[in-house]
């Protein structure tokens, strides 16, 4: 799958590209508005990540251009401007998702995966990872064909883990993504610990292999 990253901050664009490349995405970086236009005329992308403030143009205009040209790529806006008005503007223009800077790469990855599921696997909404099967349409989780009941937080936690399988995920990133914390309220380690513990227990009890590993001082890793 091809991803176009339109971001004027060269280092950030490279970081994003490197992280996403680990999940078998083919990433292409455009640092300028006009570069993005050139790339779009040459290739097709599954996902386009767009920074709103570019040196030679505005992200909203780019979104409108993409929609005008009837390019079917999914669009995620990456913006430093965290305002409801801007969100609405971007979504109205045709963006599919909106992520505020600074974001966690694991969060971006989860959003990209979710968007790809929505856009390209219509009808096929099931994600599989080892013994675990998640039906994202019905919000149902099966372990070895047996249905298990998860709370909404545990469900989100599991999806987040699967999306970033193989990567070390910080507790902060989990707090940000699952509890949508903003401002200065930290999700205490205990809250995350309790939820991860419960999820782990439910999965293992149902017969799944234990994929969740604690990583000292950092957080967790979901891996075989």
């Amino acid at each position: 799958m091809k991803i176009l990253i339109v971001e004027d901050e060269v280092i950030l664009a490279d970081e994003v590209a490197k992280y996403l490349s680990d999940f078998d995405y083919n990433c292409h970086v455009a640092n300028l508005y006009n570069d993005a236009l050139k790339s779009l005329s040459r290739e097709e992308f599954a996902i386009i990540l767009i920074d709103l403030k570019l040196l030679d143009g505005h992200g909203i205009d780019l979104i409108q251009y993409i929609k005008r040209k009837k390019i079917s790529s999914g669009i995620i806006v990456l913006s430093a401007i965290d305002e409801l008005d801007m969100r609405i503007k971007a979504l109205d223009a045709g963006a599919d998702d909106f992520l505020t800077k600074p974001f966690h790469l694991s969060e971006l990855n989860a959003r990209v995966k979710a968007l790809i599921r929505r856009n390209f696997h219509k009808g096929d909404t099931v994600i599989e990872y080892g013994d675990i099967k998640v039906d994202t349409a019905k919000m149902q989780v099966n372990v070895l064909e047996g249905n298990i009941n998860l709370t909404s937080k545990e469900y989100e936690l599991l999806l987040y883990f699967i999306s970033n399988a193989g990567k070390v995920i910080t507790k902060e990133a989990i707090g940000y993504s699952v509890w949508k914390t903003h401002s200065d309220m930290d999700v205490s380690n205990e809250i995350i610990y309790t939820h991860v513990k419960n999820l782990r227990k439910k999965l293992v009890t149902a017969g799944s292999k234990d994929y969740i590993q604690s990583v000292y001082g950092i957080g967790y890793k979901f891996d075989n």
Partner: protein
Amino acid sequence: MKLVYKNILINTLVSVFILFVGEYSLYFFLKNKIEKETIEHLTFEAYIVKNELNKGVSIEYFKHNIGDVLEIIPIEQIQYKTPLIKDVLVKEEGEGEEHEEELEEDHEGHKREETFTSKQVLFDVTQNDKNYRISIIKTIDEDEGMAGSMSAIIFISGLCMLVIIVLINVFVFNKLFSPVYQLIKDIKLFSVQQLKKITPPKTNTIEFIALGEEVSRMSEKMISDYSSVKEFTENITHEIQTPLAVINSKIERCLQDENLTNEQAVLLVEASKSVNKLFNINKGLTLLSRLDNKQFNNPIEINLNNLIQQRIIYFSDFIENKKLTLNEKSTNEIVINMKESLSETLIDNLLKNAIQHNIQNGKILITTHNNVLSISNSGDEPKDSPEKYFDRFHSQTPNQSLGLGLSIVKKIVEYYGYSISYNFENNLHTIAVDFNQKIKTT
């Protein structure tokens, strides 16, 4: 009081005062003059009578030839060689307002008695070895009456003039000052967010032209200042956030390194936390400055009770984690007009404050009563003065929070003209937001 009425009031008071004083002086001046003339007249008459008598004219002759009331009384001894003038009151019976001649002729049989202020001249003469006292009386009332009528005419003319001046004032003033009224209206409607400067009203009065131009210039300056502050806020948000995002993503990628030691991992996570803190400070300060610059429009109707319910669900994990007991009491639903994102920030920060500064197994009490929202939480007695709670970067326990939450709450509350207060009672910290009195925002 409108300027025009103030002006009229002052004008009227001064005019009426002058009119009264003028009238009063005029009346007395005339009265004095008449009296003097009467005295002169009588003295002259006395002189003539004396002269004629000396020439040998019979006393009887004068009885019929002097216009004024003449009395001749025989006396024993001469008393007044030089004429004596004195004031007398002449009592006469008359019927209503009759002329003097008639009064003189009909001496008897009248029902009403009238008194006239008069002057009398007395002098004694000798003729044919007989002494006589001659008295001439001249009534001055009718002359004074004339003074009165004259004064009255002038007074009425004065009043008429005053009324006309008042009317002219009302019309001319309103017309003359219409550019000022227009300007006041424009200033009232002026909003810096609309980026539309005040246009000076059309007028040819030099002072108003100057005023209009100055106001217009000021509005232009305000707009440009506002725009540059706004631009700065937007720039700083963007320019700081992007490097922070870079730092964070670098750290995140470092954390994926399998050769990372535990110590290094902890260091990286600490660094990442500080970056997040920096990001949150930036975000909080940006919000505060946007509130200071009044950059929020488009309020919508918000039911605070419903919003609180939603946000409580969101915070439920945090409440459970601290094993807090949550109680809610509501006697009325609070509905306000506020920008949606701000109302959420308001409630979130209040709830966050109540959770974060709570103790294990503590209590949270949320009440809405008479349009006052109170959120209380258990906690130790405050060490600082309550006012400090709303200060920026005020925090009782170090490293627990940024200390921006309550100052943001206060700013939002004040932005919409409501009031906020803090109170500590029965080991409960209570923050109450009063949505009743709408203080006019300036």
